[in-house]
């Protein structure tokens, strides 16, 4: 499979009063065409900032300090703002966690969909009437695709007139309007109830299969990853700590953090057995020493771990950032 997105040694920093925060510190990743990559991590692990950096959406006091981002053969970091704007929304689309704040409350859904097409679609007819009806037809088609009943009527409504699940679908519809090659879905179902979550995730999987699009699914829920992603990348304190095929990473984790995360999930099957939480908390990202970032919470840590640890091969298509990964297998 050919590579669609390739990020190498990405570093994104935020200048704060407390000091320089390296929210993303040396992240490398690849997304193949048609693939679904799951990105897992807890709050502050850098998963959202990584992909905001890819989208060119990091604002001051943050900045992308180092690394390369190649999309479909083009170097995104070298692009002028207007060139990046042309790619964003057309070739790469991102849906935000909170649909209510991401949608414009003062515009109807139809107007928001039209904005995207007018900005990005060169194939629209130039005659005014034909243009209008082309935009309308496509909007109706997209809302139908994401399973919104009576799309003609719904186009004239405002975001507040929709339920949470419907709003999330509208964001997906807007993101898909220009048939992007890559959809980045940032916690698409976190705010949703479980029955609605299942509907939205299946929708994304369906559309991905139908349009042959690549998907990056950012989530904190390993269950969602297990059911929907081909590969998974686990992040901790601004770094990737483990990466590989979903079944293998979840079935036999090679990094102690991944293992701890899996052991932390309460499961009905484990009723009556003690849960084994990871002790302590995520380290403060200001002024982190270059050593392994998990070592203060790691049950396997020893003196030798107080060094900078690179991603190490952990089997075919797998990597983990742990000196003791051999002992984990």
């Amino acid at each position, binding site marked *: 499979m050919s590579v669609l997105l390739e990020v190498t040694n990405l570093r994104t920093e935020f200048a704060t009063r407390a000091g320089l925060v390296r929210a993303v510190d040396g992240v490398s990743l690849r997304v193949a065409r048609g693939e679904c990559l799951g990105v897992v991590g*807890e*709050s502050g692990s850098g998963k959202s900032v990584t992909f905001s950096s890819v989208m060119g959406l990091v604002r001051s006091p943050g900045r992308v300090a180092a690394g390369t981002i190649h999309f479909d053969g083009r170097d995104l970091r070298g692009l002028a703002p207007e060139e990046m704007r042309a790619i964003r929304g057309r070739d790469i689309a991102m849906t935000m966690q909170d649909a209510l704040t991401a949608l414009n409350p003062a515009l109807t859904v139809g107007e928001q969909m039209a904005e995207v097409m007018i900005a990005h679609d060169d194939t629209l007819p130039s005659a005014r009437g034909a243009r209008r009806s082309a935009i309308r037809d496509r909007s109706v088609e997209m809302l139908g695709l994401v399973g919104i009943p009576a799309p003609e009527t719904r186009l004239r409504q405002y975001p507040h007139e929709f*339920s949470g*699940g*419907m709003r999330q679908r509208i964001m997906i519809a807007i993101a898909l309007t220009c048939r992007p090659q890559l959809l980045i879905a940032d916690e698409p179902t976190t705010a949703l*109830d*479980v*029955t*609605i*979550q*299942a*509907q939205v*995730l*299946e929708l994304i*999987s369906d559309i991905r299969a139908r349009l042959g699009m690549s998907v990056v699914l950012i989530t*904190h*829920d*390993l*269950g*969602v990853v*297990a*059911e*929907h992603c081909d590969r998974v990348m686990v992040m901790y304190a601004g770094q990737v700590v483990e990466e590989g095929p979903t079944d293998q990473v*979840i*079935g036999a984790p090679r990094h102690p953090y991944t293992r*701890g*995360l*899996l*052991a*932390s*999930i*309460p*499961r*009905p099957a*484990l*009723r009556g057995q*003690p*849960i*084994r*939480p*990871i*002790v302590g*908390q995520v380290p403060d990202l200001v002024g982190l020493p270059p050593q392994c970032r998990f070592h203060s919470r790691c049950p396997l840590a020893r003196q030798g771990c107080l060094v900078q640890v690179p991603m190490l091969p952990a089997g075919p298509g797998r990597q983990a950032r742990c000196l003791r990964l051999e002992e984990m297998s």
Partner: protein
Amino acid sequence: MSLLEVTGLSKHYAGRPSLVQRVTRDPGQVVRAVNGVSLAVERGEVLGLIGESGCGKSTLGRAILRLHEPSAGRVTFDGTEVTALAPPALKAMRRRMQIIFQDPYASLNPRRTVAEIVGLPLALHGIASGEEAREITARVLERVGLKAGQLDRYPHQFSGGQRQRIGIARALVSNPEFIVCDEPVSALDVSIQAQIIALLLELKRDLGLTYLFISHDISVIGYLSDRVAVMYLGEIVETGPVAAVLDNPRHPYTQSLLSAVPEIGARRDKKARVRLQGDLPSPLNPPKGCKFHTRCPLATGICRSAAPETRDLGGGHSAACHRLDEGLSLLEGGR
């Protein structure tokens, strides 16, 4: 006798009437957030209350403690009818019945120190004051995994998980028997969530506590509950021992809820999944008959016209559905 008995409890909120409604004395729209709920919690058990947002589970928890005054029904705690108590007696009763809130940021006063927040119930109930109160507060803080040296800090100096520990300490300080845990781990990251769950279970065991544990997360409920009650649009649709409800759900709503949970170790293609149509109906205008019929794949004529009675299925398991006898299941193989 059960420690807590709830019978026919309702909480209705009146919408603001329009001018016409005011003139014609029409009561206007009423939200039936909790509608005729009956349940019992035995001493020393965890009753898990599960449901999606807007189903009324938090309102039920608060109505039980009379933090929201119930519209109808009865709550009995250890033989005393809580719903009949006058304010001074209710206050005394609250020493024995406490609550832990979901949001560890919004539920702690940012301008009070930990000593003041956690020690407040001691003063309110006249349990202790001064140095003695400080000592008790320090002991409780250590019990929940914080340090006595943190007594004079403010909430913003703590992480989300630590704040939830402060909320737990506040609930524990008056030495209660029963605690309503209202989504206490939903706002926390997975690894922190596990720490708090472990703490709550340890406290329950060591102090002989009884919990009503409210959550939308089936994995959490399934892991720590002894019995489970499933709520939909203000009503309990199924209740029973945790193993019975999770392994052999009988109500179509419970079945679809369980099948929607993404699971580790179950591949998507191998798992039976019930796809519910549509969203939760508005509680302002709930469907007639069985409230689940608008989304239920099994609904027939009677479901649209008459509300089903709750029926005993044996072994403490009960459900409210017209079609229980037909042995239908939405889950593959009708397990």
